[in-house]
């Protein structure tokens, strides 16, 4: 029989304690991360719907493949807690009007596993449920049924590690696959046992002692991605990581310190105040790459904090690139640095970020179709924001944006590949208004050669693959593309 309770968040800990007692989880068993620190991060005005027993597919997989084979008793059942933005009542579950109210207030859920270590399990919780959500990140729509009512939320999947069937590496792969599996029909979410089968190792994989980065990359390749792996000594290491994040691609970061390694998923970046960005631009434009007096500032050089999914901490933690574990109290994490990152690219994206970045640079500096020689905007700097997107998404955005009608016509008639690299070009004042003045579009399914450049557009100049001639085009400015990362601007939906 399913039992449930509706309580304000201030009272949920009592239900958690009952669950812990029932499963013989003693306070001393708790790992340094537990459900209490999770609840502390949430808004104080939330209401909860707790139900038990709950069958969680991810925990059941760990249970049948691992925990059930131990002498100690482990329950098969979990406690689930649904979160709502304000008070809810039992009656809301019984009427259509009440169901609509529930949907409006629903923010997601977390599962508590009957484990002594890492009991917060599969969690799909909107950033809106947290006290701090001043950032932009990738989200996916997740359906669930709470109290018999079908509800949906927008979240990035998260789980804590149980340290035996799942460590940080498996948790990161699971989060990423859960995100892709819920987002795209051609992808499938995976279970812990699927992850353990997805890489080859001469020794046992469970109890898990972690994975190497190469094993993470192998697992993702087996799950159908064209995985790319970057080392910290790669040229433009940080900038390339930010290109992918700006593209809405979750990236697994390989952190290393003296005491060991850790994996987290980077899914977005903080939303900076305009005045802070202006200061950074002013400082950087004094000393960035300068060719014939043209200064190119790449927005991937703005040192925004990354939004991380870390299985040792509640979801959506913000940390600087150089201090990825700054939110840890445990000193063994204090020296952690990002040494690698693994990108789960679609297998049809052939032009990776490093090559795209170099192509943008060569195009902007060209003596024939460069910004300096062709642009009517005679400013000595250009601000470049680069990202990957799909041809269809970009066309959809362009046609519904405030772009010039002629530019819309050209983009609409363009043969777009499935994936494109876009560099939006601007100058300081226009960029700070969230607007662009020019575009470079590259075919991401193309090779590292100029044939992959499908459109170059500056104020007063347009060269496009579907135009036999270059034209003198004054299309004005346009609102920049924002679809890849969600935030307050999209009301945290996607």
């Amino acid at each position, binding site marked *: 029989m399913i039992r449930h309770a509706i309580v304000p968040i201030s009272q949920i800990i009592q239900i958690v304690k009952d669950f812990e007692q029932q499963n013989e989880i003693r306070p001393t068993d708790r790992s340094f991360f537990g459900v209490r620190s999770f609840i502390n991060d949430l808004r104080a005005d939330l209401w909860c719907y707790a139900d038990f027993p709950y069958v969680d597919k991810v925990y059941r997989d760990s249970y049948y493949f691992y925990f059930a084979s131990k002498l100690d008793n482990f329950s098969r059942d979990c406690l689930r807690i649904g979160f709502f933005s304000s008070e809810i009542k039992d009656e809301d579950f019984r009427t259509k009007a009440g169901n609509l109210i529930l949907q409006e207030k629903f923010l997601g859920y977390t599962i508590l596993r009957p484990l002594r270590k890492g009991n917060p399990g599969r969690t799909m919780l909107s950033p809106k449920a947290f006290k701090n959500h001043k950032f932009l990140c990738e989200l996916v729509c997740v359906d669930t049924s709470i109290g018999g009512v079908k509800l949906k939320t927008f979240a990035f999947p998260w789980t804590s590690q149980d340290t035996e069937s799942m*460590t*940080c*590496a498996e948790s990161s792969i699971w989060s990423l696959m859960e995100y892709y599996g819920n987002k795209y029909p051609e992808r499938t979410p995976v279970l812990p046992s699927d992850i353990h089968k997805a890489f080859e190792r001469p020794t046992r994989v469970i109890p898990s*002692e*972690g*994975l*190497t*980065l*190469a094993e*993470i*990359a192998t697992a993702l390749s087996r799950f159908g991605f064209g995985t*790319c*792996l*970057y*080392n910290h*000594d*790669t*040229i433009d290491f940080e900038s390339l990581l930010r290109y992918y994040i700006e593209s809405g691609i979750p990236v697994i970061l*390989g*952190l*290393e310190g003296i005491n*060991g*390694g*850790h*994996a987290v998923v980077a899914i977005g970046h903080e939303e900076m105040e305009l005045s802070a960005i202006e200061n950074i631009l002013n400082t950087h434009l004094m000393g960035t790459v300068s060719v014939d007096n043209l200064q190119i500032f790449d927005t991937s050089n703005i040192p925004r904090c990354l939004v991380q999914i870390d299985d*040792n901490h509640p979801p959506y933690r913000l940390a600087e690139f150089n201090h990825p574990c700054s939110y840890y109290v445990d000193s*063994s*994490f204090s020296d952690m640095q990002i*040494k*690698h990152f*693994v990108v789960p690219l679609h297998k049809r994206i052939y032009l990776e970020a*490093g*090559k795209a970045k*170099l*192509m943008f640079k*060569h*195009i902007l500096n*060209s*003596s*024939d*179709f460069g910004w300096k020689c062709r642009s009517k905007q005679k400013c000595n700097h250009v601000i470049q924001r680069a990202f990957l997107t799909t041809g269809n998404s970009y066309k959809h955005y362009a046609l519904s944006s405030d772009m010039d009608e*002629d530019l819309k*016509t*050209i983009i*609409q*008639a363009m043969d777009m590949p499935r994936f494109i690299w876009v560099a939006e070009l601007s100058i300081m004042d226009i960029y700070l208004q969230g607007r662009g003045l020019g575009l470079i579009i590259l075919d991401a399914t193309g090779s*590292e*050669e*100029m044939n992959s450049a499908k459109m170059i557009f500056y104020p007063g*100049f347009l060269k496009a693959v*579907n*135009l*036999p*001639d*270059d*034209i*003198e*085009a004054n299309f004005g400015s346009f609102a920049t593309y924002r679809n890849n990362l969600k935030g307050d601007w999209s009301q945290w939906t996607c």
Partner: protein
Amino acid sequence: MDLLIDPIEELLKRYRSEDKIIEIDQEARDREIKAINDELAEFGLKQRAYFNKSVESARKAYLTF
């Protein structure tokens, strides 16, 4: 197929009548594109070495915390 409209043709007609077509030196452009392609190919070779090194180093990077 005659019923399908080519919006670019119409657009170009207008730009031609307004004298907004930019004359280019095709030979100079071909030279420029070749020079860029050569540099991209050289970068590709260097990058392959970086990527191989990344894989080698990733085999040793154990993530357990």
